[in-house]
């Protein structure tokens, strides 16, 4: 993993180290990652650095990605499932500039995927690393604001408060009213925040062949799901977890099984639903699938 000192990326004119962070910092982060992998779902404190993008913009994810990147990697960055959202573009450019690594929009081609709020629709494979940007790593934070208390609760596996919260949801609303950042239980031990992905994506965490890393920069925590970890979304026997579904199909590619974004098309209540995963949607259209509102497929740049 070493040998990159002063080997600034090919595209980077500035004299920054490979992937921006110095080797000492990357080593510190890798140690935290190794510990996190060894204790799935446990939040490992790490000395998060100030990054050249603001806290809340994915500084945790960026540091984890920087610590994992090698010159041979192929990086994909998504935000809200899309490769072309402004922040995804900004982070991808950052690594193109500071590490000179190849980038891709295709999930299957990527060795590292940094994401905010989604897991791609295409199944992940062995050898891939998913890096999640995490705003609040503590699943118990909104039930107990004190870090000293929540650490104790994790140590004692005292998760009653969380179950009471979910039960109260059911008694008030008839079902659990958490739709994203839906808490999971990792290997039967730690309750973990899967980051603000929609609960639709939660089943993709379970038994995944890919390594899942979670970085929270501002809160200085890293946690992980090694490949093939058991990840259960919290539920009750009589109220089993439900990932949700749409009545509509994607208006562009016709997919009935992917997570959809609602797009408002006019000011008269007109709206269509399209895949949030833009790479997935494009691949389907390329393969000839079409939805109700789709134009014939054209290559990007048109």
């Amino acid at each position, binding site marked *: 993993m070493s040998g990159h000192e002063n080997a600034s990326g090919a595209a980077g004119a500035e004299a920054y180290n490979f992937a921006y962070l110095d080797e000492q910092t990357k080593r510190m982060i890798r140690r935290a990652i190794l510990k996190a992998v060894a204790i799935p779902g446990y939040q490992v*404190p790490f000395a998060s650095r100030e990054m050249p993008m603001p806290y809340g*913009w994915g500084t945790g994810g960026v540091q984890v990605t920087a610590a994992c990147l090698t010159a041979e990697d192929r990086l994909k960055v998504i935000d809200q499932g899309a490769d072309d959202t*402004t*922040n995804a573009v900004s982070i991808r450019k950052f690594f193109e500039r500071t590490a000179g690594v190849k980038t891709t929009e295709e999930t299957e081609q990527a060795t590292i995927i940094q994401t905010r709020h989604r897991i791609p629709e295409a199944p992940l494979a062995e050898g891939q690393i998913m890096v999640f940007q995490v*705003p609040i790593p503590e699943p118990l934070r909104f039930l107990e604001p004190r870090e000293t208390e929540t650490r104790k609760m994790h140590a004692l596996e005292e998760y009653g408060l969380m179950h009471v919260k979910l039960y109260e949801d059911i008694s008030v609303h008839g079902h659990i009213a958490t*739709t994203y950042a839906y808490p999971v239980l990792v290997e039967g031990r730690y309750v973990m925040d899967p980051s603000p992905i*929609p609960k639709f994506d939660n089943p993709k965490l379970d038994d995944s062949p890919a390594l899942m890393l979670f970085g929270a920069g501002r809160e200085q925590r890293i946690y992980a799901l090694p490949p093939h970890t058991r990840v259960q979304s919290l539920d009750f026997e009589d109220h089993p977890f439900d990932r949700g579904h749409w009545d509509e199909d994607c208006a562009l590619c016709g997919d009935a099984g992917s997570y959809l974004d609602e797009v408002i098309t006019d000011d008269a209540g007109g709206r269509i639903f399209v895949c949030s995963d833009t790479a997935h949607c494009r691949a389907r259209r390329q393969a000839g699938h079409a939805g109700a509102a789709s134009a014939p497929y054209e290559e990007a740049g048109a």
Partner: protein
Amino acid sequence: MYVAVKGGERAIDNAHAWLAEERRGDPSVPELSLAQIAGQMRLAVNRVMAEGSLYDPELAALALKQARGDMVEAIFLIRAYRTTLPRFGEARPVETAAMACQRRISATFKDVPGGQVLGPTFDYTHRLLDFKLAAEGTPAPAPEAAPGPQHTPHVLGILDREGLIEGEPEGSETPPDLTREALDFPCDRALRLQALARGDEGFLLGLAYSTQRGYGRTHAFVGELRVGMVAVEFEIPELGFAIEIAEIELTECETVNQFAGSKSEPPQFTRGYGLVFGQSERKALSMALVDRALRWRELGEEDTGAPAQDEEFVVAHCDNIQATGFLEHIKLPHYVDFQAELELVRRMRREAAASAAAAASEAAE
């Protein structure tokens, strides 16, 4: 027919170009030089250095220029730069008793060894807009005096000799480093002071003010406030002695606070401490008051539940770079989470409407 919007990359580039143009302002007006900012906006530069945790007036001036005068943005630029700098080692603790004071006041004694030196202060100015400054502002030279004493003893040291004030408690041998280790609660005083020293001036001012108004009251006297230059010394292992590598401007504030005493200890005054880069008196005072309020546990005082007494609350929220980042990130797209909420609210409204309709038809039967 619908074509999804693309072009995040071009939008970003164009936005940056526009920003650069806005930053420069009217090109027919001469551009600000860094020397002008560092020399004439010195207190702004001081704040950027203090909260950016990097003593370099020229870089702070550059950051202010680049940030269009936005303090927090300038501080952020400095922090992001600072984090890339290599560390050669640790300086020796600065000797503030040997400070070349340009200002030094005590509110607890009328006169003190070393004297009261007012120095360049706004304190007794009348806040009347000086319209002459709008045209030009070259003032008449200020009268000069001979330099003060080399060594100005701390006022609190005088109280200490009598045992009237608590001794300065020993810290740990090597103080923890907030920027190199993850924050862990409970934290010791050295770490808290580090966090406060780079904490947001406005946030600390509000907290300090709240203690004055009764939320964690400690009743502070300004034992001493001093502003001046101190030498920074660095131990070179190869040489076996320390050499002076820099001179920096600091503001130091020591407060004297009430203490009722306990069964085991006779009544004694207690201390609050503030130390900030540059002349930053409001920040140094605020820091000292908040430091003292946070010491309630160590001094056996009552926890009144005041925000300024709550270590986790204060330390976790005083960093304006963390705060502004997380606050402003809500401008980033959240379509996915919002979509999930939208679906849930629609579903719950459908369910509510259905059950209302069922109840109505039951009532009609």
